[in-house]
């Protein structure tokens, strides 16, 4: 069948969609092709050069099929340019050269066309563009790996625009609409300086100016729904009132909206020294370098940003497009966040991993990841497996470790034992990390994190992958049976069918992840130097922020050689106002000088600044401000000191409990026993932490009293059992008499009085009355009756001797509150 005939037949048979394709319409037609028609029928002239051969292998073979570009751009159909023609690959090569940029493959016309949706064979034109880029990069080979010259073009000059900001907001409106009805009402229990446990920021402070200052960073006047106050309630469910976060968030948002409505759109403070303004999309795409992708057989960059499919843009068929299930969200700036779900490819498509890796016997798993936490265990990040018990490979997280399981002839069915990064090093952090797991029969398994090899030699000898199964599925963020959830964000995942070398790993790490732009902020008007700019590399950092890095001073006109221009205090502004957080260049103090120009001009700082996202990359307009730039200066007023309003605390008790050492020292003092006496010391050491540790009476427990009593008894025991001490302490008392005699009549006063004098003190009116205490211990009425008291009850018990009773009386007095309270 000729191509012409094919198109005619197709036109007759395949209906309008295909006609549209031949006609070059820009509409996106989903046509998920997983298998390309093999170019086996090529009978034309052989490639004349190596470059033509490279073109054929990398691009022509992939696009010539009738269900790709070969449906139209062929000699048979005649849609120019004929880069997919079938009759002569050398002529196709000539045509292709007019629509590719081998220096910068992503800038190729072919890429732009499919990226615009021109007959993209996937539902996402970006994915088609990425695949086309990959094919052209493959053709370009070494030409594309040597980096590129970045051509900086002057942006359109634009003044910073208008936006709502707090400079024109009224504190009174804040008080009436937000502080009074919402913040004071619901948040002052913590976020106020007079709270019982004050928590910064004090946006609910009774001092309105303090509250207003603190609240500003939590309010988005342009988009009230994005205010931190609203998100904190609605999304993070932080102390919602009345247990209804939806209503609370709604109420908060309405209040912020009402407040925002009082704020007029304002221009940038005219006193500021400002640069021109730019949006991210006005920038120049910055390629930080080229990834090593020669052996890449699957690649997910997660650029689509919507839908439930992540496309494999490696260009290697069949594509393992991943389908989301469960709670999987797109991540701002390319990526997916797996909260409670997975992204899984079909077993059929996944089998390419089996086929291509088994062919080489080695492979690498590469990923840019952001673990959500460091508490999850056995959490599958990238897994090619069937479930809990069978796998070909798995990269997983356990606490602070990455772990790598690979099935080979030297392991079991499940790829155990796992190779782990050293736990003590805690290399896994809940932040963006580049992790590469490589396997080869020679070196075994290795794990690289952020470009560095972090694992020791694999204890499992290298084996063959001959036992791998081709019926498994590639899954990201979970196990195939959903029993191995990994919570986190994946910003890029690639599979290579070679073990990347350390140099290649480092190369890919250095390239980074995500899209970056060069933004040229014009300062010509400020310093009077034509084509003078402050150049920043800006990237979408995550869903909520931008990253500004590598600031340079540059003049696009090479004849301009400014020298000696002071620059001090650089800040980044967004949407008409300076950002109030993250100003990493606020202390910058440099002199702009052409003599320090490098490739991109004069480097100003090695630091990076994270700036909160407000309206998104399409809407946020950035500009720079300076405290001093050339002769222009801005006098910045300093934030006032925090005014802490102290309010009265509830009255605390004026008394307290003696603490452990105090009790020990007190008992030593009132019994005259040396605390170093072995029995006493041993008892104290064993009881030390059972005694009160704080003075607060409210913290006093029954167990404390028990411990005090134990210690008191030990002291009293030591006192009574030491003849010298006992005689000196209880002069005149006869320990050798039986209890009835020893405690007869007023004899008992010989025990009670010395004790109470020491324990209670003499004449201290804040202590209990002496007779009352004495009566409790051993009262005898003049008529001989004896109301209930300690000594008589002990005697009546019949099994206590005289010494034992003295110890009991001593312990009751010394271990009581009269000595242990202060």
């Amino acid at each position: 069948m000729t191509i012409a005939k094919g198109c005619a037949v197709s036109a007759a048979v395949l209906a309008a969609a295909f006609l549209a394709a031949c006609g070059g319409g820009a509409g996106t037609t989903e046509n998920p092709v997983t298998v390309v028609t093999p170019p086996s029928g090529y009978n034309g002239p052989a490639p004349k050069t190596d470059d033509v051969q490279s073109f054929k292998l990398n691009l022509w073979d992939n696009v010539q099929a009738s269900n790709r570009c070969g449906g139209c751009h062929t000699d048979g159909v005649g849609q120019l340019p004929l880069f997919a023609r079938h009759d002569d690959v050398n002529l196709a090569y000539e045509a292709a050269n007019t629509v590719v940029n081998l220096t910068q493959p992503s800038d190729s016309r072919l890429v732009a066309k499919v990226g615009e949706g021109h007959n993209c064979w996937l539902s996402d034109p970006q994915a088609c563009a990425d695949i086309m880029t990959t094919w052209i990069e493959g053709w370009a080979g070494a030409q594309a790996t040597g980096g590129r010259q970045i051509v900086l073009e002057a942006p359109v000059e634009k003044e910073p625009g208008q936006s709502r900001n707090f400079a024109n907001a009224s504190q009174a409106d804040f008080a009436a609409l937000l502080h009074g009805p919402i913040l004071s009402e619901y948040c002052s229990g913590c976020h106020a300086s007079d709270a019982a446990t004050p928590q910064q920021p004090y946006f609910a402070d009774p001092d309105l100016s303090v509250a207003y200052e603190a609240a500003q960073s939590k309010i988005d006047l342009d988009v009230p729904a994005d205010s931190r106050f609203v998100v904190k309630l609605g999304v993070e469910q932080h102390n919602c009132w009345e247990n209804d976060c939806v209503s609370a968030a709604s109420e908060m948002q309405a209040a912020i909206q009402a407040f925002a409505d009082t704020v007029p759109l304002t221009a940038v403070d005219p006193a500021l020294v400002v640069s021109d303004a730019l949006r991210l999309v006005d920038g120049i795409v910055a390629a930080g370098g080229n990834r090593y992708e020669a052996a890449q057989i699957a690649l997910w960059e997660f650029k689509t940003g919507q839908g439930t499919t992540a496309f494999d843009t490696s260009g290697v068929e069949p594509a393992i497009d991943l389908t989301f299930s469960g709670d999987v969200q797109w991540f701002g700036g390319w990526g997916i966040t797996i909260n409670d779900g997975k992204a899984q490819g079909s077993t059929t498509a996944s089998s390419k991993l089996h086929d291509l890796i088994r062919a080489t016997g080695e492979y690498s798993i590469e990923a840019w990841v952001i673990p959500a936490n460091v508490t999850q265990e056995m959490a599958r990040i990238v897994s090619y497996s069937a479930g809990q018990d069978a796998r070909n490979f798995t990269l997983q997280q356990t606490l602070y470790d990455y772990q790598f399981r690979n099935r080979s002839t030297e392991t079991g069915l499940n790829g155990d034992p796992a190779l782990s990064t050293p736990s003590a090093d805690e290399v896994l952090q809940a932040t963006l990390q580049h992790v590469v797991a490589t396997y080869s029969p020679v070196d075994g398994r290795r794990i690289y994190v952020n470009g560095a090899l972090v694992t020791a030699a694999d204890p499992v000898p290298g084996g063959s992958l001959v036992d791998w199964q081709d019926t498994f599925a590639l899954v990201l963020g979970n196990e195939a049976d959903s029993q191995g959830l990994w919570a986190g964000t994946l910003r890029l995942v690639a599979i290579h069918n070679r073990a990347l070398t350390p140099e290649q790993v480092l190369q890919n790490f250095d390239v980074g992840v995500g899209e970056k732009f060069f933004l040229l902020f014009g300062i010509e008007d400020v310093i009077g130097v034509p084509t003078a700019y402050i150049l920043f590399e800006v990237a979408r950092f995550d869903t909520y922020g931008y990253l500004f890095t590598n600031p340079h001073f540059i003049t696009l006109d090479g004849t301009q050689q400014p020298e000696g221009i002071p620059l001090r205090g650089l800040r980044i502004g967004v949407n008409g106002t300076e950002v109030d957080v993250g100003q990493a260049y606020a202390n910058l103090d440099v002199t702009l000088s052409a003599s320090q120009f490098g490739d991109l001009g004069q480097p100003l700082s090695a630091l990076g600044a994270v700036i909160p996202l407000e309206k998104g990359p399409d809407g946020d307009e950035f500009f720079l401000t300076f405290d001093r730039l050339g002769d222009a200066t801005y006098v910045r007023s300093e934030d006032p000191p925090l005014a802490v309003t102290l309010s009265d605390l509830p009255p605390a008790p004026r008394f307290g409990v003696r603490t452990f050492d105090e009790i020990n020292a007190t008992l030593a003092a009132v019994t005259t026993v040396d605390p170093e006496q072995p029995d006493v010391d041993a008892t104290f050491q064993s009881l030390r932490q059972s005694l009160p540790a704080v003075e607060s009476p409210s913290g006093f427990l029954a167990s404390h009293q028990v411990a005090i009593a134990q210690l008191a008894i030990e002291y009293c025991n030591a006192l009574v059992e030491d003849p010298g001490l006992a005689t000196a302490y209880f002069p005149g008392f006869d320990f050798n008499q039986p209890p009835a005699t020893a405690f007869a009549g007023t004899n008992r006063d010989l025990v009670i009085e010395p004790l109470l004098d020491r324990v209670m003190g003499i004449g201290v009116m804040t202590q209990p009355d002496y007779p009352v205490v004495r009566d409790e211990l051993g009262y005898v009425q003049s008529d001989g009756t004896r109301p209930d008291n300690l000594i008589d009850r002990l005697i009546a018990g019949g099994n206590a001797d005289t010494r034992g009773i003295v110890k009991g009386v001593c312990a009751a007095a010394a271990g009581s509150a009269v000595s242990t309270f202060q």
Partner: protein
Amino acid sequence: MSASSARFSHLARRLLQRSHTRRFLPAGRGAGRTVSTLTAGPDRLGHSFHTSGTRVDRMTQRTWLIACRAAVLLAVLAGTAAAGPREQAKRMHDRLAGVPPSDAVLTAMQADIAANRPLDAAYIAMANPSFYNVTLKNFVAPWTNRDRSVFVPLNDYIATVVGMIHEDVPFNTVLSADILYVGAPSLGLPPYSASNNDHYAQMEARGLDLMTGLQRTTQSSLTGLPPAATAGVMTTRAAAEAFFVAGTNRAMFRFTLLNYMCNDLEQVMDTSLPPDRIRQDVSRSPGGDSRLFLNNCIGCHSGMDPMAQAFAYYNFDEASGRIEYTPGQVQPKYFHNDANFPFGFRTPDDSWDNYWREGQNSFLGWDESLPGSGNGAKSLGVELASSDAFASCQVKKVFRAVCLRPPEDAADRAQVSQMASLFESGGYNMRQTFARAAVYCMGQ
């Protein structure tokens, strides 16, 4: 005794008499259960009631139990009465020394108070060794460990603070001086070692008196630190073991802030400060959410990291058990996890800057005569200890220790403010501060 206290005692006694009838019935259910629990062996805290065989031999369990009960009941008798000079003296002694006074001491203090010399009375109380061995030791102990536990062995940090207070060394040098207190040679202790705590552990185990047994010396003469590298208690072995061990050395800053400025990081969060000195190990997007960094992390790290840089040359070597100082060479811990944010600050030396001198945290009252920047821990210690917050903090801690409560109303706050002024103007004398606090609370 006043009429009210007499009535209280009378009522208490009647109550007790009723309680006796009810509580001391041997066959009572409650008593039976209690006996069973108490004699069954170790209690729930793991403490056996049979720690001393001697005691058990000589005292029946019933005697013990009744005595214990009696002790509890006697507690109810504690009455209230108008506090005259004698009662004020008693309270003052209790609070300062932690132990009841002898009759002679009480009488002497009473006389001073009656003669309107209450500070003299306080000094009598502070002459009791327990002021040093008990009150001050436990006052300082929580500052020396991350758990803020009071149950730690005596160490060089505690001994140094106790010694400084005893000798009225200006306390604003506590974070900067080349100072150390060790046991006197006559005590026969093992010599001070920079590698272990044996010297102090033995001093405590033998119950030696800190009031008379401590002797002042310098760290540089014993630990190997150059004099310029010493920074008061921050460079003691105990502090190093607690706060320079592993980690990033931020702990030393945080706990110094907590213990000597009475502010934790939450109270000094300021998200408006430049983050240009925040190290590379701090993720700018924890878990993929930069809002966490911009709303929380930055608030503390922006001020903390430029000051914690002062400790860049310090480490605690766990293997040798001693502080390590590497002048000119930043410790590797400052570069841990440096790939977390490669565009963060990379520590080149031990220079520090106090960003809190500007903005909201200027309320801490920094000394305008100081530059607010420097190199190393010693000058940072001077910076911190010269602030109003430092003086106020020491006074508040003393007030809390002596009055057993925080300042709670305008009168208390005025007292603290006055004491802080006197503390600053009077040579940072801690004993005076204790005395003033005791005088203030003696009549309450």
